[in-house]
């Protein structure tokens, strides 16, 4: 599979260097000399690392995208093998640091079709210029890269973030047209009093990585409208390579709270117990727990059980109403709430991009200590964890914790 359209450009904002066909060819040559079928690739936002990724994909070598700042030895220990399924192209991790993380197995077909589907609905063309705002090992960051490369657009590599001067300077200098953010970055942009008029080329903001509060959806949609631009609310999961739905900006006000309609070629179905099922060409082949799983073929048949509860209106707009699995998100990173409860003496719930942990009769010192320990364990900033002392947990008639009551107490 070749993701690199001949017209596509990748420019490193800090160094000015650009990705060339020769870079990809050199990376391919280097890969040819490496043993094992699987390429374990801690990917930084650099020309060299993108060249290696594209080379692996082009050679049909399954590539595992990893956090360059993470402890990655266990991945190659668990998943090194010579036996891989011919359709397998890309492997992404499912969660942050907790539990026993699995890999999501994505075929070349899934990656390619999702890049095209996204490019279609966001109308990405050769004149588009994206800037990196997310790590490339994260499915959303990867999909921004892929969907621009396949359409011959430009991607600006910027290793700083929205809280730093260099990022905004690069956005102006390179005439950036599109930026992708997760919910907590929208909170930051609001704090920065983000004004799109300062970036004359900017036309598209996209949002994925969890639910964005509807007041922020309206706020940023209105801010973009003042410059003739749009906010695209989107819905996805790594398991869908990753995008499943986009809310057309023209319908945003009237469908506020919806995550949009299924991408072209995909559709939603609500199961008898209310779960959102997605059908489409971009659904993963399955998970991998062991190296042997990398030899397996497609086990999903193009259907993804999302674990989300939802409803679809008569025009096909999806509204997410809850979750089946006990999952939370902290700054866009998925966490298993049951795992938190196994490791710490707390009852954990999702507080909207924050973890809220209730500790029985905890002193102020204990609350502080728990907060530090839990955030260290999750590998996140402590502002993503809230610990509260509680006298007694609300219980259901069957004696189990009443999580709904806890959630409504927030």
């Amino acid at each position: 599979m070749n993701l690199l359209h001949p017209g596509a450009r990748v420019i490193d904002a800090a160094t000015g260097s650009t990705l060339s066909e020769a870079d990809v060819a050199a990376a391919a040559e280097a890969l040819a000399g490496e043993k094992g079928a699987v390429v374990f690739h801690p990917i930084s936002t650099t020309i060299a690392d993108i060249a290696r990724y594209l080379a692996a994909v082009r050679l049909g070598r399954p590539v595992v995208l990893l956090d360059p700042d993470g402890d990655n030895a266990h991945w190659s220990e668990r998943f090194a093998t010579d036996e891989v399924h011919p359709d397998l192209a890309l492997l992404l991790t499912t969660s942050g640091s907790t539990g026993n993380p699995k890999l999501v197995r994505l075929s070349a077909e899934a990656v390619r079709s999702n890049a095209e589907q996204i490019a279609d609905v966001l109308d990405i063309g050769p004149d588009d210029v994206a800037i990196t705002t997310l790590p490339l090992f994260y499915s959303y960051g990867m999909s921004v890269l892929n969907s621009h490369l396949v359409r011959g657009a430009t991607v600006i590599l910027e290793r700083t973030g929205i809280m730093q001067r260099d990022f905004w300077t690069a956005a102006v200098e390179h005439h950036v047209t599109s930026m992708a953010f997760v919910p907590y970055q929208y909170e930051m942009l609001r704090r920065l009093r983000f004004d799109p008029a300062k970036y004359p080329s900017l036309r598209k903001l996209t949002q994925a990585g969890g639910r964005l509060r509807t007041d922020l959806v309206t706020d940023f949609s209105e801010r973009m409208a003042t410059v003739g631009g749009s906010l695209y609310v989107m819905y996805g999961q790594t398991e869908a390579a990753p995008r499943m739905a986009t809310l057309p900006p023209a319908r945003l006000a009237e469908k506020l709270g919806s995550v949009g309609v299924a991408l072209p070629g995909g559709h939603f179905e609500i199961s008898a117990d209310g779960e959102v099922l997605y059908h489409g060409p971009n659904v993963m082949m399955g998970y991998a727990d062991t190296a042997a799983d990398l030899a397996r073929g497609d086990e999903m048949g193009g259907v993804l059980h999302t674990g989300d509860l939802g409803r679809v209106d008569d025009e096909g707009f999806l509204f997410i109403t809850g979750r089946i699995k006990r999952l939370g998100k902290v700054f866009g990173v998925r966490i298993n709430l049951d795992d938190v409860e196994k490791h710490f003496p707390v009852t954990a719930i999702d507080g909207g991009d924050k973890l809220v942990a209730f500790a029985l009769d905890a002193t102020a010192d204990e609350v502080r200590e728990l907060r530090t320990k839990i955030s260290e364990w999750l590998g996140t900033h402590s502002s993503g964890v809230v610990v509260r002392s509680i006298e007694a947990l609300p219980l259901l008639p069957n004696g189990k914790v009443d999580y709904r009551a806890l959630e409504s107490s927030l």
Partner: protein
Amino acid sequence: MSTLQQLREAFRTALDLPADAPVDDLQYQDNEKWDSLAHMSLIAALEDEFGVMIDTDDVINLSSFQEAIKILGKYGVDISE
């Protein structure tokens, strides 16, 4: 507590640093704990602690402890022992 001590405390809390960590020479790029999330906490802490509203340009220019002293100075906050 002097304003300098208050500022050091605000940095340690926002960056999840130990109570005795030296902070006077901190730079955004050099410290792995000083990421965008920590930066947002830091700005909120400075605004609360010193009762100021920091402008967008100053938020993204605040790239070191010493720069924080200068920027707070612009808002009439004197940082001293």
